[in-house]
């Protein structure tokens, strides 16, 4: 309670000048408040009934300036009965009853107004609108009321309300809030919120502090934090230092603090860029990894690859629609079923395409490119005819919604985190299939030496079809992931096809790790350029850089070594 007394004393120079017009009675009451508060611990029942009634009546003053002063006066007290009054005033429900000049909260029901006494909080009669006169407010008062309510929320029993109030005070940085905040600090038990409150105190003490020591202490507190907000506080202080005539050592300390906060923030910014880059890279990787198999391993330019992704996304949509009656919304099951379903559907489509079109065109890559482009147009139009041209909604399961937020401004959304994880799993799975399974062995044998593979009894045509099916199926799985972060529309595939080719070409054909490295480096470079140049220009730069890169290394980062000359 020592702080309570202190707070009033500390407040005095500010409040005094604002309150000079308030009657001495109020000043007396304040003194009484202090005494009373000292005796009634933790309830903050600061006003007596009579005082509350008296001060509330002053809310009906003609001068808005005076009303503001009264509101601040009431709010500064911390009496729990004040909040409903101010809330009612903000909502326009506060009236003066003509009969006894008492201030009441009145709620309208039909034509009848029910009065609620502000002191007891109980129903105190009814009347028509004629017997009440409304306490008028304007925008200035609304602002004051909102600030006042924020202060009062500091004492709410609800932790969430309290922390919201602290944030609001941090943003407003009104020195008049300081005493109240100090009292709230004294009472706060939650460790995290206490830290926030002390930070808020420091932001105010910086400007409002009396002595050099106080300011230096505040700066020390601020310097240990790393948020954009604190940077704003410090830079504002530094820039106004000359005009305000602060002590040189304070200004120097503030400058140092600002520099260190900025340094740490820029590190966090870099971390954020890398994360966003990895996130974009994982999307690119998912889109491109199927292509790394069909293009990289088989040498088939599959322009319909994007449509395989689209088919995967639509499979997710269909599975979700089909399972909707059996599952609660947000269930992870529909997604779990979608992954194998999308793999099978897209894989089957891939096998059909390989058997009907591509196998006649091996060794003629440019013709393959054109024919698969035709396939992609047919698939797009087929999907458009079946599902319509509009976007379909795929709802994300609960475990993928939400985000981890850091005070430094870094936000990690769960869906991106899951997609990063998912892409790693998919790539690891493909690597395992290629390395450890009989099919993987046959596939590598066929791509290395088709004739020899045939001679030892591998059905090469069969392996071709399955390899293409694998690549397409992976694209389908990518579609499941992409349906969670982008629109499911017939054009979904088109948006990824060029990027996918870029990744594979950049990484080097025929090398899975090249694709991984290619995807992540393209993603990260893109995200580092974005803050400097904007999203579109960044993309253009990356494309140009790629075109130039291909000049330097026409076969990508990891070219297959050999002496083969192209036919």
């Amino acid at each position, binding site marked *: 309670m020592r702080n309570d007394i202190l707070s009033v004393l500390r407040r005095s120079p500010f409040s005094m000048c604002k309150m000079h017009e308030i009657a001495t009675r109020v000043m007396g009451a304040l003194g009484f408040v202090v005494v009373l508060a000292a005796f009634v611990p933790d309830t903050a029942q600061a006003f007596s009934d009579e005082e509350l009634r008296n001060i509330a009546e002053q809310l009906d003053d003609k001068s808005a300036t005076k009303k503001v002063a009264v509101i601040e006066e009431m709010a500064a007290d911390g009496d729990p009965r004040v909040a409903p009054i101010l809330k009612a005033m903000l909502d326009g429900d506060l009236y003066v009853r003509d009969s006894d000049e008492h201030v009441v909260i009145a709620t309208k029901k039909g034509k009848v107004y029910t009065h609620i006494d502000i002191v007891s909080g109980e129903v105190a009669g009814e009347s028509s609108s004629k017997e009440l006169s409304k306490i008028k407010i304007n925008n200035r008062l609304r602002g004051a009321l909102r600030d006042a309510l924020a202060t009062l929320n500091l004492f709410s029993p609800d932790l969430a309300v309290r922390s919201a109030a602290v944030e609001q005070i941090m943003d407003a940085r009104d020195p008049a809030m300081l005493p109240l905040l100090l009292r709230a600090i004294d009472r706060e038990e939650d460790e995290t919120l206490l830290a926030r409150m002390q930070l808020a105190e420091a932001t105010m003490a910086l400007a409002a502090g009396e002595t050099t020591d106080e300011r230096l202490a505040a700066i020390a507190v601020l310097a240990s934090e790393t948020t954009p907000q604190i940077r704003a506080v410090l830079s504002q202080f530094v820039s106004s230092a000359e005009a305000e005539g602060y002590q040189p050592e304070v200004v120097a300390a503030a400058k140092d603090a600002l520099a260190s906060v900025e340094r740490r923030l820029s590190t966090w910014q870099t971390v954020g860029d890398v994360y966003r880059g990895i996130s974009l890279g994982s999307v690119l990787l998912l889109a491109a990894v199927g292509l790394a198999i069909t293009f990289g391993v088989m040498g088939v*330019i599959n*322009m319909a690859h994007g449509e395989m992704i689209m088919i995967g996304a639509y499979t997710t949509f269909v599975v979700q629609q089909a399972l909707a009656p059996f599952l609660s919304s947000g269930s992870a099951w529909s997604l779990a079923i979608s992954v194998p379903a999308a793999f099978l559907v897209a894989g089957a489509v891939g096998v059909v395409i390989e058997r009907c*079109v591509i196998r*006649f*065109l*091996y*060794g*003629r*890559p*440019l*013709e*393959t*490119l*054109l*024919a698969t*482009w*035709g*396939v*992609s*147009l*047919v*698939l*797009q*139009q*087929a999907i*458009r*005819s079946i599902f319509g041209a509009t976007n379909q909604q795929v709802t994300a399961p609960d475990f993928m919604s939400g985000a981890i937020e850091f005070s430094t401004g870094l936000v990690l959304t769960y869906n991106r985190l899951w997609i990063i994880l998912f892409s790693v799993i998919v790539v690891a799975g493909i690597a395992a299939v290629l390395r450890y399974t009989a099919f993987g062995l046959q596939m590598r044998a066929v791509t*290395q*030496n*088709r*004739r*020899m593979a045939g001679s030892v009894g591998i059905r090469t045509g069969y392996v071709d079809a399955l390899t293409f099916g694998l690549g397409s199926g992976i694209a389908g799985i990518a579609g499941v992931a992409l349906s969670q972060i982008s629109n499911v529309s017939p054009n979904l595939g*088109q948006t990824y096809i*060029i990027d996918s*080719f*870029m990744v594979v*070409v950049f990484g080097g054909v025929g090398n899975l790790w090249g694709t991984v490295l290619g995807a992540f480096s393209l993603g990260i470079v893109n995200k580092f350029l974005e803050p400097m140049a904007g999203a*579109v*220009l960044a*993309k*253009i730069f990356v*494309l*140009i850089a*790629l*075109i*130039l890169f*291909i*000049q*330097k290394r*026409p076969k990508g980062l990891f070219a297959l070594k050999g002496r*083969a*000359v*192209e*036919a």
Partner: protein
Amino acid sequence: MTDYRQKYKMTPVVGWLLNDRGGMTLLAILIAAAILVPVGNLLVPESSAFHVPTWMVSLLGKYLCYALLALSVDLIWGFCGILSLGHGAFFALGGYAMGMYLMRQIGDRGVYGDPILPDFMVFLNWKELPWYWYGFDMFWFAIVMAMFVPGLLAFVFGFLAFRSRVTGVYLSIITQAMTYALLLAFFRNDMGFGGNNGLTDFKDLLGFSLQSDGTRAGLFVASCVFLGLCYIVARGITQSRLGKVLIAIRDAESRVRFTGYRVEYYKLFVFTVSAVMAGIAGALYVPQVGIINPGEFAPALSIEIVIWVAVGGRGTLYGAVLGAFIVNYAKTFFTGVMPDFWLFFLGGLFIAVTLFLPKGVIGAVPAFGAADRQSLFTTWRKRVAERRANEGGKA
């Protein structure tokens, strides 16, 4: 076939023109169209059965521009094996050069009435014309730019790509990346080319109103003339000694290089010429359709151009012209009658032509001597056998 060169001892140019049955047919049709269509439009009364409505003049003019574009693609793909999936970029750049001239011609007749600045710049609060818009109030400058800018881009791009021996599919993919990058760039308002609305609301060309029948007929004739001229140029290139080297490069690039030819210079030359032709096509296209926007840079459109060539018959030049007409007529027809079917048709066309008609429609016509009258089945059996042999030999 009679070799007219031997028979009449003519100058080489006339000789290779007369030797070219398809080309002669094409030029004859173009001359006939350049005379009959304007006459049918302007002189024959509307009541007559021979009257050509104005919309058809514009439509045919548009097809002629597409045909010129297809011709430019066939020149590099059919004769040098360079599959560019970004030729739409050169077309659009030519179109933008012409569009800028037409924009400047609007003068103070725009919505905002600014005598210098086009409407969209006034809208964006720009105070003065960007430097790259200077000179476009002069027709000759715009025409030069419509050829120079695509040519320059092709030269720089080709110089880099061919020097480092980016070939085949890789080249196709980076040409696609090029047009995609330009698409994104031209969508930006800051570029000063009207953002995603592009350039439109044109009023007149060299003082002639673009809305009048006479101007439209004039543009149609110009399209015929330029298509004919470009055909002759392309034909000349492919028939020359240089053309022989180009075909050799198409069929076995490494061998040509080993024989001592600087392959990249040949490729660069023909690629640049082709881009200039595409630019001319764009410049003729814009006044006839009345708008140019970044959509013309879309990679999908550039791929479509290739299918025009493939449908008509790759490596014949006149086949490309025919293909452009067939596919675009089909497009006009299907998008009018049953729009949903159009993409099925186009997609099916891509598949069918590559699988069954590798020499296009022209190849199926025996009169042009290109078809080897084997059944389609034996053709692909042979091809599969070849491919098996190649694959085996390569590894």
